């Protein structure tokens, strides 16, 4: 297990370095001179020179990359050109919205998908199964930001159960904060829950056809016991893969859906960064998102080994 974890961790580090190189390459090299790019065509040479100095563009590419990457490791993302504050400050405030939203949605989708998928698999072919499969088919087809609009229409405008948008903040208590993230989280979770429930169902059905289920039944386990004690854990392996993939979809989805609910998350920061050509903000936020995806995939890899002893290597 230790060896496996170490190998996965090394692979995480390699991917992280490679990803940061890609981001650095795209943002700082492809546009030519980032300073004149950020200031636009009509900028005075003096201003450009000043910005170049501020951005530390004088050094070689290698040293610039090392400065940037080294800075990020200690939480220094540079200064935003438009906001005139350290990017870290901007990010810290906004990540408190986006990341909890993505995890909230992940939790919701898993909490919905597991029982639904299990029910469908254990009553394969029944009316219930057909109903579940039909509604998940629909759930997958719904664009989450559009579904978010419908939710606003019904629960905020119509029933007035929730605010139509905005974020109450975490200072007034966790529940208040969670409440303002609930509609967005539901909108995000519906698609992912549908996918996950289908994967869960088909993984379970595959597993239920395996020889070891017959062995379990021959031991005297009921159909239900064979499912919960033997099939479920084996079916988790493909399900985990999907959960890992889903996190990146949810993070991207969270950024898009912030628009519908006027949430002050990373989405707004990054879209403003794009329109104002604030490359430093874009670069940092992108790197942060990529970092989150890579870390979650690492965690999923570790979870694999917890579920499947074949991945652990005996010491």
């Amino acid at each position: 297990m230790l060896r496996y974890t170490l190998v996965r961790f090394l692979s995480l580090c390699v991917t992280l370095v490679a990803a940061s190189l890609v981001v650095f390459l795209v943002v700082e090299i492809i546009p030519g001179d980032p300073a004149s790019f950020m200031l636009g065509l009509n900028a005075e040479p003096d201003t450009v020179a000043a910005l170049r100095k501020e951005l530390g563009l004088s050094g070689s590419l290698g040293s610039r990359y090392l400065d940037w990457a080294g800075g990020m490791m200690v939480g220094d993302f540079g200064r935003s050109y438009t906001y005139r504050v350290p990017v870290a400050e901007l990010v810290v405030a906004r990540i408190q919205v986006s990341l909890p939203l993505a995890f909230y949605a992940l939790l919701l989708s898993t909490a919905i998908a597991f029982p639904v998928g299990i029910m469908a698999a254990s009553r394969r072919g029944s009316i219930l199964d057909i109903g579940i499969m039909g509604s998940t088919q629909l759930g997958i087809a719904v664009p989450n930001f559009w579904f978010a609009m419908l939710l606003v229409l019904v629960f905020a405008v119509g029933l007035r159960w929730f605010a139509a948008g905005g974020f109450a903040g975490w200072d007034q208590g966790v529940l208040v904060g969670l409440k303002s993230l609930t509609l967005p989280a539901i909108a995000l979770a519906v698609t992912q829950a549908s996918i996950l429930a289908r994967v869960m169902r088909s993984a379970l059905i595959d597993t239920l056809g395996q020889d070891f289920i017959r062995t379990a039944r021959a031991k005297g386990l009921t159909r239900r016991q064979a499912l919960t004690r033997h099939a479920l854990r084996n079916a988790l392996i493909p399900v985990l893969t999907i959960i890992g993939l889903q996190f990146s979809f949810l993070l991207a989805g969270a950024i898009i859906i912030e628009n519908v609910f006027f949430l002050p998350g990373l989405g707004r920061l990054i879209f403003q960064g794009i329109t104002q050509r604030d490359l430093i903000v874009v670069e940092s936020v992108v790197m942060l998102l990529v970092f989150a995806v890579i870390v979650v995939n690492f965690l999923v890899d570790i979870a694999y080994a917890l579920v499947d002893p074949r991945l652990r290597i005996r010491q």
Partner: protein
Amino acid sequence: MNLLEVSQLDLAIHGTPVLESVSFAIEHGKTFGLVGESGSGKSLTALSLVNLLPPGSVRAGNGRLLDQDLFALDESQLCSVRGREIGMIFQEPMTALNPVQSIGDQVAETLIVHGACSRSEARNQACSKLERVELPPERFPPGMFPHELSGGQRQRVCIALAIALQPKLLIADEPTTALDVSTQAQILALLRSLVEHDGMSLMLITHDLAVVADMADTVAVMESGRIVEAAPTEQLFRNMRHAYTRRLLKASFHKPRRGRLNALHDQPLLRVENAVRSYRLPKSRLFSSAETLRAVNGVSFSLDRGESVGLVGESGCGKTTLTRAILGLDPLQGGQISLGGRPVLAGRKMSRSLRRRMQVVFQDPYGSFNPRHKVDRLVAEPLHLGDQSTNSARRREIVAQALEEVGLTGDDMKKYIHEFSGGQRQRIAIARALVTRPDLVVLDEAVSALDVSMRARILDLLAGLQVKHGLSYLFVSHDLTVVRVITDRVLVMYAGQIMEHGKTEDVFRNPRHSYTRQLLDAAPCIPRSWMQG
């Protein structure tokens, strides 16, 4: 008094009858053998008893276990019969265990689901059950997982969990078919001791007449869903009443008539000299250096033109690795192989003209063909080794001729492979091997997946083709009986080395090496005295 009595068992799956009025009885503490070829319904008979049938099955008849009417039980009552009164083990030990649960837990579960004892007590019991099947806790702690065990060891775990509650009846469905001869002998000995010492009755389902002769007190023979003949074992073998039983026995000892070829001994066709091939094993520790396994460790032999040589050994002995090197699929790390005096090299380094002199027939009649191509394209594939000038009309002619030689017709060319039976597919594989007019055909377990009657016919075909085309065969197999009837010389391989080689009959009659003796002793056989007349 009988332990189990089944009468007039009928079974239909989705309306198709698969079992018809099957009746038999099993006595206390006795072994009942049920033999038949694949598809005869022997497994379904066993599954009918505990109602673990595939969906769409309709069952009728009577089944009594002591005073219990098995067919009248509801699902929850059946759950308490399964595992407690009837234990079951199946053919494929590699997949029969839950890969993510430790072996101890899987054995303990039988005790726990039937409420036989507490969880902690069950763990202790599991250890003693594993010890009963000769997996002592010092070497096989209950925390081990199935993937850490060999096939034979896994089958022992399956037996342990099936007998954990001392069931009255143990059903073993082809329990040793997937195992090597020596492992088979050990598992059969274990099953025998369970019957003798633990007072269980055993229902042994197999396709192998020798296994039932060795094990069973009474035998029933099944053919397409019916029991055609049943009798005490010795009586059945001495006095076979039904034609099918006789056919089955004849087929399993079938000796193809082999014409004599004038083997040319001046220059060997195939020469293997000091062949070495090793694999790197996965590292056991993070920073330790990787260990290597010498799968083929200094093997030398030669094969003459027109000769048939058998290469026998159990799984893991290195025969597959050696075969792949001979076929030029993998490179050697030491030594050399030559065909007709020219070196055999891996991959594209070997010239086409040399490659076409050697062809192969594999074991699996299902995996050996690309399902998307028609038979003409499948059979013609090796022709690409020949002259580029072969036009399509000539190609068709060659393919048609090859198909006719193996007992099919030219019209079969336009069919897809799924339209053929297992035996026909092996014929097509042979046709494919013949189109380049090779000198050497490697038969890699080529008849191992076939039922005995089909196997007999394919062996006849191979013997005929050998004379007709002056072929040399390298017959790679784990099955000693087959090798004995089709080869002139035999090589016995163990742990990467040739332990013994010599004329086939000599080796079988007077094995010199202890491993060969062990191998021959392990193979179950029908007593000679039973088969007189």
